[in-house]
């Protein structure tokens, strides 16, 4: 038999001024199942809470309804009081008669009648409440960071420096990502390598970081605190334990004309190579597709040149299985394919290059050792034209969004060019100059005022070659007329786009992505570094175009989220989750489609001999967030949501 306690709070005058609390308490006292119905000035006060606890103990109440302010105010307070009185906290419900009754109605009788309905419906609900226990999920204190660019390194170092274990997986043979390719960085013009490489070394040497380069995440199973991750270690054909990184094999390799990915095609590399001289780890890999031995079974020059016998052509891909508590995704971006803009002649004219290629030209460690030389004939260009938004903010051909960094790096390129080629001329076609950030607008002004970059507001329509020069036809919208600029080199500020496999990879980890393939945060404003999946966090340009300071800030934010998760051995979660009745579940998997969190798994039901009888849905308590969408989707009424069961809600509706 239900013994419900109803506690009607006056909230000083806030409720009592409109709702006749005495009349309400008397009426509720008559309701079936109500054992105690009392009123008091402030139930949330100490004596108020004490009186609730006393009533629970003295009357052996099976549930209570506090008719007071919104549950968003004091539900936690009264649930705690319940627990202290020995009653399961989930047997307490709040009837909101302040925010949604006394404060919003003028007529006292009407408000009292409404309050009675609200309280009665909560009494009917609480009669059907079940005892619930918080869900405890054990937490493996080991983080996985995917991506070894600046965001990944920052996240890994922050977590590792706080004393937690980190596994860092990088797809390429070396750490560094895009930042390692850059020459100087805005707005300070400090050398990218000089700030990046020490971080790479620190990461590789950190006792808490396990570094897996030339490796890819193959699969992710499990849930927050308990992920099972499989990593594919791609065969390097070089034994990492033996190799010292002397580089003898690289100098001896006869295949020397492979276009270097790191130099964006402007430089060459060998078949056994490290992406760049400062690679971490500084150990080569063999590019199987280009290696003569793998093509026709002969060569092995590198093996012969290696005095340590580190080269092993028999090496196979290996798999490493990891137990992981939290995942930081920092997989970065790509520059958009410029072939989209045939009119700009990228690929047709060798002196039309991308911004990233310009970075390589300007970089002291690049193919030209930092001299700005045009790719066609190696001469210094006297006129350089920069075309901004070559892909960004262009719904017709490119992408709708702003890539955020191009205005800044184009200004930087203009400055670098002016510093290196003193009598060179710079023209920049732009739509708007977007320079929001600390020191950013000052930086673009400097490019214009000190380094004499000439900005032309308008788009470029066409580009052709005439007498060995590039002719750039565009419009100057401020003058209102077309212009043709002669150039020796043209640099396209291409859009930042997601990695080509971003969507498939999102499915591997089980996170959501937007129309472009950038990963979705749980809430754009309030949960910007959490993905939609609990325990998976986002850092850097995999979420949206970002510059270095933003990527680093976001990476540190993910680290703080990971550390908060690792601060306890067990994760305690609200028990408001879906539960399935396996006896009636028909395995139609409608719930699997409905669940936004991939929380529903297929479970085998077997008889004693192990024969499979049927498959049913199983709700993973670590993943379920308790929205209840699956429950109303369930065709056989097998699923129910703890705390908001069908029974409870029907009772609530009938009580109204």
């Amino acid at each position, binding site marked *: 038999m239900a013994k419900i306690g109803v506690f009607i709070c006056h909230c000083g005058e806030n409720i009592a001024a409109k709702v006749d609390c005495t009349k309400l308490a008397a009426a509720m006292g008559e309701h079936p199942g109500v054992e105690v119905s009392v009123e008091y000035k402030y139930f949330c006060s100490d004596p108020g809470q004490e009186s609730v606890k006393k009533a629970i103990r003295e009357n052996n109440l099976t549930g209570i309804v506090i008719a007071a302010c919104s549950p*968003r105010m004091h539900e936690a307070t009264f649930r705690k009081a319940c627990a202290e009185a020995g009653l399961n906290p989930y047997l307490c419900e709040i009837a909101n008669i302040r925010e949604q009754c006394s404060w919003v109605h003028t007529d006292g009788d009407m408000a009292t009648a409404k309050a009675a309905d609200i309280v009665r419906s909560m009494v009917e609900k609480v009669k059907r409440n079940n005892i619930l226990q918080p869900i405890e999920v054990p937490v493996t204190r080991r983080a996985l960071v995917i991506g070894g660019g600046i965001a990944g390194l920052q996240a890994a170092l922050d977590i590792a420096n706080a004393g937690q274990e980190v596994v860092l997986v990088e797809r390429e043979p070396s750490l560094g990502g895009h930042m390692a390719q850059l020459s100087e960085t805005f707005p300070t013009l400090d050398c990218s390598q000089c700030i990046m490489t020490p971080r790479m070394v620190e990461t590789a040497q950190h006792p808490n970081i396990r570094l897996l380069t030339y490796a890819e995440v193959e699969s992710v199973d499990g849930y927050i605190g308990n992920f099972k991750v499989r990593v594919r270690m791609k065969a390097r054909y070089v034994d990492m334990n033996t190799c010292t990184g002397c580089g003898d094999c690289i100098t001896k390799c006869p295949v020397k004309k492979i276009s270097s990915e790191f130099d964006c095609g402007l430089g060459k590399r060998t078949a056994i190579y490290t992406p760049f001289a400062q690679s971490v780890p500084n150990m080569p890999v063999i590019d199987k597709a280009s290696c003569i031995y793998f093509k026709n079974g002969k060569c092995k020059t590198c093996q012969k040149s290696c005095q340590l016998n580190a080269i092993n052509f028999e090496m196979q891909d290996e798999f490493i299985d990891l137990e992981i508590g939290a995942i930081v995704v920092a997989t970065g971006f790509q520059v958009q394919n410029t072939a989209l803009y045939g009119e700009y002649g990228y690929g047709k004219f060798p002196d039309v290059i991308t911004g990233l290629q310009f970075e390589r030209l300007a970089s002291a460690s690049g193919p030209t050792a930092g001299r700005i030389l045009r790719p066609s004939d190696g001469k210094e260009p006297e006129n350089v034209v920069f075309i901004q938004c070559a892909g960004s903010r262009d719904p017709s051909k490119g992408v709708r969004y702003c890539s955020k960094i191009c205005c800044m790096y184009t200004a930087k390129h203009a400055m670098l060019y002016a510093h290196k080629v003193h009598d060179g001329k710079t023209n920049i076609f732009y739509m708007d100059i977007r320079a929001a950030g600390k020191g950013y607008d000052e930086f673009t002004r400097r490019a214009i005022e000190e380094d004499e970059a000439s900005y032309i507001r308008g788009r470029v329509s066409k580009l052709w070659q005439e007498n060995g020069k590039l002719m750039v036809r565009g419009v100057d919208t401020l003058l209102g007329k077309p212009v043709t600029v002669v150039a020796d080199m043209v640099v396209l500020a291409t859009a930042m786009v997601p990695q080509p496999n971003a969507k498939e990879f999102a499915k591997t980890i089980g996170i959501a992505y937007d129309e472009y393939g950038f990963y979705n945060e749980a809430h754009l404003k309030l949960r910007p570094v959490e993905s939609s999946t609990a325990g998976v966090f986002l850092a850097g340009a995999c979420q949206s175009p970002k510059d270095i300071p933003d990527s680093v800030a976001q990476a540190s934010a993910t680290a703080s989220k990971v550390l908060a998760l690792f601060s306890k051995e067990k994760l305690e979660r609200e028990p408001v989750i879906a539960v399935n009745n396996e006896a009636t579940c028909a395995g139609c998997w409608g719930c699997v489609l409905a669940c936004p969190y991939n929380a529903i798994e297929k479970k085998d039901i077997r008889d004693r001999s192990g024969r499979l009888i049927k498959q049913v849905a199983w709700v993973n308590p670590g993943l379920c967030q308790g929205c209840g969408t699956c429950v109303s989707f369930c065709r056989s009424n097998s699923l129910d949501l703890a705390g908001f069961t069908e029974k409870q809600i029907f009772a609530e*509706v009938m009580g109204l």
Partner: protein
Amino acid sequence: MSEPFEPKIVAFVCTYCTYAGADLAGTSRLKYAPNVRIVRLPCTGRISPMFILKALQKGADGVLVSGCHPGDCHFTHGNYHARRRWMVFRALLDFTGISPERVMFSWISAAEGSKFADLINSVTEDIRKLGPFDQYQQLIKETESPATL
């Protein structure tokens, strides 16, 4: 003259947006019609059409469903599921002869206290114009065999 008809309206709302919006109307001391009774759910995705039918069966003259704006759902997708379900359910109501105007759907965010108050007033007026929902009660009288839902 008889007293004006006071409709009874049941609102199914999500706790993250509309319930918070209703609370905001309260903390802002906005005044609105006292005809709506709120049932709080974690998400509009939790709302089964059966809840709406049960409310109508038990004497509600109108039902309001309100959740987070599209794209703002705390649970990412729940409101979209609710919207799809509602589109189908509305057609079914129409088919069975129940005016779909008795069931309303709305998006109210946690910041839209005044929108909540305005909506309740307009919904109350609309239902008042439609008059009491006694089709079901009449049906029971006619057949004398109360259907169960």
